[in-house]
C-alpha cells in the first residue's frame, strides 16, 4: 500500500477510498447539516418568543411558509421542528459524529492501513450524500417537508389529508432515510470487521483506546437496530402508497372515511423505538469514547477504571435494546409492560454513574492542560450529569404521566444527548484537527467558542425544565392559546435570546475551522503528547497511514505520568522497560 497508485483530483478528494478523506467528507457534510438544523431552531425559537409576528429570519424560508402578515404558518412550524430533529439526530449526530470519527480513528488507532473495504467505505459516504440531497430537496416540494415530528408517528405521517407535509415531503423523507440506513449499515459492518480483523500486532482488545471500543459498540448497535427502522419505514410506505393497513384503522380524516381496518399505530411505535432508543446511544457512545480519550490525554493521567469503562459501554449497549417502551408509557400499552420498561430503564443509571465517577476520578490529582478539546470534554461531563439525572424522572413511568411530551423532555434530551454529543464532537474536532489537516486550530478562538457555547447552551436548555413542570407540551406553535401558560412568556424570551446568541457564537468555530485549514500554524507530529497510534503517523497524511512497516503495540493507550518514566507519556509503540508492569 505504501507504493500506492497515483491519485487524481477525483480519486483524492471526491471518490476517495482513503478513510481519512472519507472522514473529512462526513465531517464537512455533517457540519453543513448542523448549520441548517441550527438555523431552523433559531427560526422556530423566534416564533416561540414572538408568536405570530414576522421576522427577518423568515426570509430564509420558502415564501409559501409565511402568511400575508409575515407570520410563520403553524404547520410549517411543525415542519421546522421535524426537520431540525431529523437532521440533528441522523445527519449530524449519527453520520456526522460516528461517520467522521469511526472512519478517522479506527484504522489510525488500531494500526491499520485503511478500512477493511475502502470501496464499501466510499459507497457508504456517497449513499449518505445522496440521502442528504434528497432530504434538502424535500424542503422545497409542494406541501413542504415531513411535518409529523422526527418520530413520524402514523396516522399523521401516513395521511396527506392530515397535514400538508405528509405528502411528497414525507415520501422523500422515507426515501432519504432508506438510503441513509443503507449507507450507515455498510459503514457499520465495515467498522466492525476492521476492528475485529485489522488490529496491528500487539493491539489486543484490552489495549484498545476507549474511542475504538465506543465506536465498535456503536457500530454493532447500528447494525442490529437500523434494519428495524428500515422495515418500519417500508411498512409505512406500503400504507401510504399501496393501500395496506399495517398502522391504520377506523379513520375519518378531513371528512373522508378511509377503508383501512385492523392496523395499529402502536405497532409502528414499537418498531420505531426499537431503533429509536439504541439510536440514543449510537449518538452518545462515540462522544463518550472521545471524551474519555481527550480527558485522559489532557489530564496527563490514565483513564480511571479502564475495564469498568469498557464494561459500562457494553452494559449500556445491552440495556439500550430493552428499554424502548419508556417512550410509550402513555400509549395505552399494558401497564405491566410499563413496569418492566421502568425497571430496565432506571438500571441504565448504574453504568452511567460509573462512567461519571470514573471521569471525576481521572480529573482528581491530574495535571490538566486546558486545550479547547479538553474544555469541551469537561462540558460533556457536566452535561451528562445535568441531563442524565432528569432521566430518573422521565424513566419512572409514574412520574412520566405528567412530564411525558412536555418541555421537560425537550430539556432532558437536549442536554444529555444533544449537548453531550455535540460537545464530544467538538472535542474530537479540536483534538484531531492537527491529524486531519496537519494544522493547528487557533487556541484562543477555541476558548471563546467553548465558553460562549457553554453559557448559551445551559441558558437555552435548563429553563426548559421549568416550562415542562408548568405543564407546557412540546411541539406547540405558540403557548398563547392557553391562559394557564401566560406566565411563561419571560422564560421563552430568555431561551430564545440564548438560542440566537449561541447560534452566532458557532460562527467563531466555523471561521476557526476554515481559517486554520488554510492559514493555521503547522502542527507537529504529536502536538498533545498523546500515546495512541495515530500520533506516530507522519504529519503529511499519506494513503496507507504509515510509510514503512505497521507499528507494533507494546502497551495500553493510557500510560501517562507513569512512575519511573522520564516524560509524562509513553507511546503505545514504546517497549516496556525492564521490570515495568502493565498498569
Amino acid at each position, binding site marked *: 500500500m505504501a507504493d500506492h497508485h497515483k491519485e487524481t483530483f477525483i480519486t483524492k478528494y471526491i471518490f476517495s477510498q482513503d478513510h481519512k478523506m472519507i472522514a473529512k467528507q462526513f465531517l464537512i457534510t455533517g457540519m453543513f447539516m448542523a448549520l441548517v438544523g441550527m438555523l431552523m431552531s433559531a427560526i422556530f425559537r423566534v416564533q416561540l418568543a414572538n408568536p405570530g409576528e414576522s421576522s427577518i429570519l423568515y426570509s430564509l424560508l420558502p415564501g409559501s411558509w409565511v402568511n400575508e402578515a409575515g407570520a410563520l404558518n403553524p404547520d410549517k412550524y411543525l415542519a421546522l421542528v421535524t426537520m431540525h430533529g431529523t437532521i440533528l439526530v441522523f445527519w449530524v449526530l449519527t453520520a456526522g459524529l460516528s461517520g467522521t470519527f469511526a472512519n478517522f480513528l479506527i484504522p489510525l488507532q488500531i494500526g491499520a492501513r485503511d478500512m477493511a473495504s475502502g470501496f464499501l467505505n466510499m459507497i457508504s459516504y456517497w449513499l449518505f450524500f445522496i440521502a442528504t440531497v434528497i432530504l434538502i430537496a424535500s424542503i422545497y416540494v409542494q406541501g413542504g417537508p415531513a411535518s409529523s415530528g422526527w418520530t413520524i408517528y402514523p396516522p399523521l405521517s401516513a395521511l396527506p389529508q392530515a397535514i400538508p407535509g405528509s405528502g411528497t415531503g414525507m415520501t422523500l423523507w422515507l426515501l432519504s432515510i432508506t438510503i441513509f440506513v443503507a449507507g450507515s449499515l455498510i459503514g457499520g459492518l465495515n467498522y466492525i470487521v476492521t476492528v475485529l480483523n485489522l488490529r496491528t500486532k500487539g493491539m489486543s482488545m484490552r489495549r484498545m483506546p476507549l474511542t475504538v471500543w465506543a465506536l465498535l459498540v456503536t457500530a454493532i448497535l447500528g447494525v442490529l437496530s437500523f434494519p428495524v427502522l428500515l422495515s418500519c419505514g417500508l411498512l409505512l410506505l406500503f400504507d401510504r402508497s399501496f393501500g395496506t393497513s399495517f398502522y391504520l384503522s377506523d379513520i375519518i380524516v378531513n371528512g373522508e372515511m378511509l377503508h383501512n381496518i385492523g392496523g395499529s399505530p402502536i405497532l409502528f411505535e414499537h418498531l420505531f423505538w426499537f431503533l429509536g432508543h439504541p439510536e440514543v446511544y449510537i449518538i452518545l457512545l462515540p462522544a463518550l469514547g472521545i471524551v474519555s480519550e481527550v480527558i485522559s490525554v489532557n489530564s496527563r493521567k490514565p483513564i480511571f477504571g479502564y475495564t469498568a469503562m469498557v464494561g459500562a459501554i457494553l452494559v449500556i449497549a445491552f440495556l439500550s435494546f430493552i428499554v424502548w417502551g419508556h417512550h410509550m408509557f402513555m400509549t395505552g400499552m399494558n401497564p405491566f409492560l410499563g413496569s418492566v420498561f421502568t425497571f430496565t430503564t432506571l438500571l441504565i443509571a448504574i453504568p452511567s454513574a460509573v462512567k461519571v465517577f470514573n471521569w471525576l476520578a481521572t480529573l482528581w490529582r491530574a*495535571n*490538566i492542560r486546558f*486545550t479547547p478539546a479538553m474544555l469541551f470534554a469537561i462540558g460533556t461531563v457536566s452535561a451528562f450529569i445535568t441531563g442524565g439525572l432528569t432521566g430518573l424522572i422521565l424513566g419512572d413511568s409514574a412520574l412520566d404521566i405528567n412530564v411525558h411530551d412536555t418541555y421537560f423532555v425537550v430539556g432532558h434530551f437536549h442536554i444529555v444527548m444533544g449537548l453531550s454529543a455535540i460537545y464530544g464532537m467538538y472535542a474530537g474536532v479540536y483534538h484531531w484537527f492537527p491529524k486531519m489537516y496537519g494544522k493547528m486550530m487557533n487556541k484562543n478562538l477555541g476558548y471563546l467558542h467553548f465558553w460562549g457555547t457553554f453559557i448559551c447552551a445551559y441558558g437555552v436548555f435548563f429553563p426548559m425544565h421549568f416550562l415542562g413542570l408548568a405543564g407546557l407540551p412540546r411541539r406547540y406553535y405558540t403557548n398563547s392559546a392557553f391562559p394557564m401558560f401566560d406566565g411563561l412568556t419571560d422564560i421563552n424570551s430568555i431561551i430564545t435570546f440564548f438560542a440566537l446568541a449561541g447560534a452566532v457564537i458557532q460562527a467563531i468555530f466555523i471561521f476557526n475551522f476554515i481559517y486554520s485549514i488554510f492559514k493555521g500554524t503547522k502542527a507537529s507530529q504529536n502536538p498533545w503528547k498523546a500515546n495512541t497510534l495515530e500520533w506516530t503517523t507522519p504529519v503529511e497524511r499519506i494513503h496507507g497511514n504509515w510509510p514503512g512497516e505497521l507499528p507494533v503495540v507494546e502497551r495500553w493507550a493510557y500510560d501517562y505520568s507513569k512512575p519511573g518514566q522520564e516524560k509524562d507519556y509513553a507511546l503505545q509503540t514504546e517497549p516496556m522497560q525492564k521490570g515495568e508492569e502493565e498498569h
Partner: protein
Amino acid sequence: MTSILIALVSLLVIVSLVQITRVSELLAELKNEDVNDVSDADNNYQGVLTLVIGFGFIAFVIWQMYEWNHLLLPPAASVHGMEIDALMRVSMGLILVVFFALTPLLFFFTYKYRGNKSRKAYFFAHNNKLEVIWTVVPTVVLTALIIYGLRTWDRAMNVDVSDSTIIEVYSKQFGWTARSAGEDNKLGKSNFRLVDNTNVLGVDMEDPNAADDKVLREVHLVVGKPVLLKFRSQDVIHSAFLPHFRVQMNCVPGLSTQFGFTPTKTTKEMKEQEGEDFDYILLCNKICGSAHYNMQMTFIVETQEEYDAWIASKKTLSQKLLTQK
C-alpha cells in the same frame, strides 16, 4: 436594505476575527512562542474560568428555582396525583442532591488540578474498592427508587373502576368531544362508519345502552367520586393531558384506551387557591397537525348537587338524534 446591512456587519465581524487571529499569532511569534501551545498562564486562566463559570451555572440554577417556582403546576388535584407528587418530591430531591454534589466537584477539580509544566499527575489507573463502592451505592439507591416508583405506578394504573362514572373523551383534528354514559353508566357501542354531522361520535343507536348517553362539550366531574375516562380518536394520535390531575393517555385511532382517577378539589376551591382565571384544562399532548397547539376542553369539578343539576339540563342522544329523524 436590512439584508445589505446584515451582510456588511457579518463581513466586518469576519474581517475583525481574521485580524485578531493574525495579531495574536504575530505577537506570539515576536515572543518566540507557539501561539497554540497551552501555557501555564492559559491553564491558570482557564482553570479559574471553569471555577467561576461552573459555579455561575450552579447559581443560575438556584436563581431559576427561586424565581420560577411559582410558575410550576399546583399540587395534584387527584388521589393518585398526590402519590405521584410525593414520588416526584423524593426523586427530585435525590437528583438535586446528586447534581449539587457532582457539578461543584467537577468544576472544583478542574480548577484545583489545573496544569503546570513543572508538575506531574498522579498515576492512578484503578482502585477496585472505590469502583465497587460507586457501583453498589447507585444500585442500592436505584433499587429503592424503582420499587417505590413501581408501587406508585401500579396504584395509579390498577384502580378499581367498578363504581367509577364512565365518560368517553373523543379526539379529532382539532377539538375534543365527550360523552357521558348516562344513568345506566354504560356507553353505547360506537363505530366510525356511523359518524356523520349529527352523530359526531358514531354511536350505534341500536345498542340500548346508547339511548341515555349524552354528548358534551365540557366535562363535569363530581369531587371525591372516581371517574373512568375512555379515549377514542377519529383521525390521528392525540394525547389527552390533564396536567392538574396528573392524568395523561394517548387517544389512538382503532384502539380504546382509558385512565381512571378521583378528583379531590372542586374548580371553586382551585380558583380560590390559584386565582380567578383557573380552570382544569384538557390539552392535546401528541403532535397532531397544524392546530395541535390549540385543542382544549374545560373540565369542571363540582359537588354532587351542582353536577346533578347540570347533567339534567343536557339532552340524551335518543332525544337528540331520534327527534331529528
